C-alpha cells in the first residue's frame, strides 16, 4: 500500500466516522445498509474480479447468514451480536464449502448456471418449509432486542443504538476491507489472478486449480454471509426474497457499477447502489427496468465501472 493510498483511506475513514455526528438518524441508517452491502460486494468480487468466476448465486450465502441469525434468535433466544456473527459465519462458510465443491469444477457459463441453480434450490426450500422458516412471512429479528460487544451496548434509546450499530458495522467493514486487501495481495491472491489470466499456464506451474478456486469460493461466500448477518437486524426481518435471484443480481450489479477490475470498485458500487435503490423506489415503481437499462449501458459503454472510469479520467488529466 503506497503512502498516498493510506492517506486516502484514512481520510475516508475519518469522514465515515463523522457521519452519525453530522447526519440525521435516517441517513446514518441508510449508510449502515450501504456498508453491509459493500461487504457482500467485496466478497463477491474475490470471485469475479480476482478469480474470473461470475457467480449468479451469492444470494445463497447472504441469505444463509441472515437466516442463521433469525433461526438462532427464534429457537435459542440468543441476543448477542457476537454469537450471531459466529453462528452465521459457520453456517455460510459451511454452505459455501459444500456448494463450492460442485461449482468450482466448472468455469464461465456452467459456473454461473450452477451457482444460480443452487441458490434457487435454497430459495424454494425456505419458501416451502414454512413451518421452520416462516415461509413468505419470513422470520423477525427485532433490532431493539440486540446486544452488542458482549452485552455492553443494548437498545435503550433508539437513536443512540442506531449510531452504535453504525460504528459496529463500520468496524467490521474496516476489518473486512483490510482482510480482503491482505488476501488479494498475498501469494494466494496472486495465484488466483494467475489462474484467472491463464489457467493452463497456472496448471503447468503446478498450481492445484480446483483447490485454489474452492478456497476463493469459500472466502467469497463467507464474506457475503457476514454481510447478511449484519444486514438482518437492520432490516428487522428475513424473507425468502434474500435468497431469490434478484438479490444475487444486485450483488453482481454492485461490482459492475463500481468496476470489478478495481479493489475499491465494488465497495463504491454497493454504497451508490443502495442510495440509487432507495431513492429510485421512492420515485418509480419500475426501478428494475431502470436498473436493467443502466446495466446494459454500463456493460456496453463503460465496462470499467464508476471507479475505473474515474481513474482513467484522472490519469488523462494529469
Amino acid at each position, binding site marked *: 500500500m503506497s503512502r498516498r493510498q493510506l492517506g486516502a483511506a484514512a481520510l475516508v475513514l475519518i469522514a465515515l466516522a463523522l457521519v452519525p455526528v453530522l447526519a440525521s438518524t435516517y441517513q446514518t441508517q441508510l449508510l449502515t445498509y450501504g456498508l453491509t452491502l459493500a461487504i457482500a460486494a467485496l466478497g463477491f468480487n474475490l470471485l*469475479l474480479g480476482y478469480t*474470473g468466476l*461470475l457467480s*449468479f448465486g451469492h444470494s445463497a450465502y447472504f441469505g444463509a447468514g441472515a437466516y442463521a441469525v433469525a433461526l438462532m434468535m427464534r429457537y435459542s433466544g440468543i441476543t448477542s451480536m457476537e454469537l450471531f456473527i459466529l453462528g452465521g459465519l459457520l453456517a455460510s462458510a459451511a454452505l459455501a464449502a459444500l456448494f463450492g465443491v*460442485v461449482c468450482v*469444477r*466448472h468455469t*464461465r*457459463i*456452467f459456473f*454461473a*448456471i*450452477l451457482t*444460480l*441453480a*443452487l441458490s*434457487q*434450490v435454497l430459495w*424454494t*426450500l425456505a419458501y*416451502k*418449509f414454512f413451518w421452520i422458516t416462516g415461509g413468505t412471512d419470513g422470520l423477525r429479528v427485532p433490532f431493539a432486542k440486540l446486544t452488542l460487544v458482549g452485552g455492553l451496548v443494548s437498545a435503550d434509546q433508539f437513536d443512540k443504538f442506531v449510531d452504535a450499530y453504525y460504528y459496529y458495522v463500520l468496524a467490521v467493514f474496516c476489518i473486512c476491507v483490510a482482510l480482503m486487501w491482505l488476501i488479494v495481495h498475498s501469494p494466494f491472491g496472486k495465484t488466483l489472478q494467475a489462474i484467472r489470466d491463464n489457467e493452463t499456464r497456472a496448471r503447468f506451474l503446478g498450481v492445484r486449480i480446483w483447490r485454489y478456486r474452492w478456497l476463493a469460493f469459500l472466502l467469497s461466500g463467507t464474506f457475503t454471509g457476514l454481510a447478511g448477518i449484519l444486514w438482518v437486524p437492520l432490516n428487522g426481518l428475513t424473507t425468502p426474497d434474500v435468497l431469490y*435471484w434478484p438479490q444475487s*443480481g444486485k450483488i*453482481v450489479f454492485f461490482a*459492475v457499477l463500481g468496476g470489478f477490475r478495481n479493489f475499491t470498485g465494488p465497495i463504491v458500487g454497493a454504497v451508490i447502489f443502495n442510495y440509487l435503490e432507495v431513492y429510485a423506489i421512492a420515485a418509480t415503481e*419500475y426501478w*428494475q*427496468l431502470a*436498473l*436493467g*437499462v*443502466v*446495466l*446494459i449501458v454500463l*456493460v*456496453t459503454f463503460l*465496462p470499467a465501472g464508476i471507479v475505473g472510469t474515474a481513474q482513467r479520467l484522472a490519469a488523462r488529466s494529469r
Partner: protein
Amino acid sequence: MEIVALQVLNSLFYAAVLFLIAAGLSLIFGVMGIVNMAHGSFYALGAYITAWAVAAAAPAIPAAALFVLLFVGALAVAAIGLALEPTLIRPFYRRPEEYQLLVTFGLLLVLEDLMRLVWGGTPRTASTLVDSLGLIQIGGLPYPVYNLVMIGVGVAAALALWAFVYRTKFGVLLRATAQDRRMAAALGINVERIYVLAFGLGCFMAGLGGAIVVPTQAAVLGMGVEVLVIAFVVVVIGGLGSLEGALVGALVVSALRTVTIQFWEEIELAALYLIAAIVLLIRPTGLFGRKG
C-alpha cells in the same frame, strides 16, 4: 392405474413445453456461444402476448381460429428477438463471457419489468382454447384434449427442427457457422445473417412454448425466471448446445418433476438440481454435450 396414465400425459405435455424452451436456449448457445439469461423472459412474453391476443379476439372470431393466435404470439416474440440481436447482442460476441451474461441479464431485468408495466400484476389466462376442445375420457377419467393436441405440436416441432437443422441447406450453413465462425465467414457465408436468424428461431421456440402453456395455466409475473432455471437443468442434463440433449433432458426433467410433485412436493426443485449436479459431476458436458 388411470392416474398413472394421466400423469404420464401431464409429464409429456410439460416435456413438450420444456423442449421448446431448452432447444431454443441450446440452439442459441450452440451457434453463437452465448447463454441467453433473458431466454425465459421470451417464453413469458409469448405467454402474455398470446393471452392478450386471445382475450382481445375471443368475442369476434370462432374458437377454432383462435388457435392461429398461438403462432402469432410466437412470431411476435421472434420479431422482438430479430430486432434485439443486431442492436444489443452483436457487439458482445468478441468480448469475454462475463459481459455476455451481464448484458443478457440486463435484458432480463428490463423485460420482466416491461411485462409488469404493460400487463400489470393480475394473471392473464386464455382458457377459452382449452374449453373449446373439450374433454376426453381416459380410463374413465376426463382429460383435456388440448393437452393431447399440444403434445402432438411438441413432437411436430421437434421433428421440424431436426429436419431444418440436418436436412436443409440453411441447416448446413448453421452447423458450419456453429463449428467455426471464422472459417464459415471465409467461405463466404453471411455469418451475421445466420446469427440473427438463429436467434430469431430460438426466440420463436421460447415464445411458442409460452403460447402453448398459457391456455392451461395463467401468465404470471416471474414465470420467465422460474422456467429459465428449469431450462438450465434441462440443458445441463442433456448437454448445452445439443438438440437431442434438449429432448432427452426435457423428458427426464418433466418425468422427475411429475413424480416429486406427486410424492414430496417440497423438494421438487431441489431434486431437479441434485440430478443436474450429479450429471455435471459424472459427465461435465452433459449426456449429449460437446466440449464447450
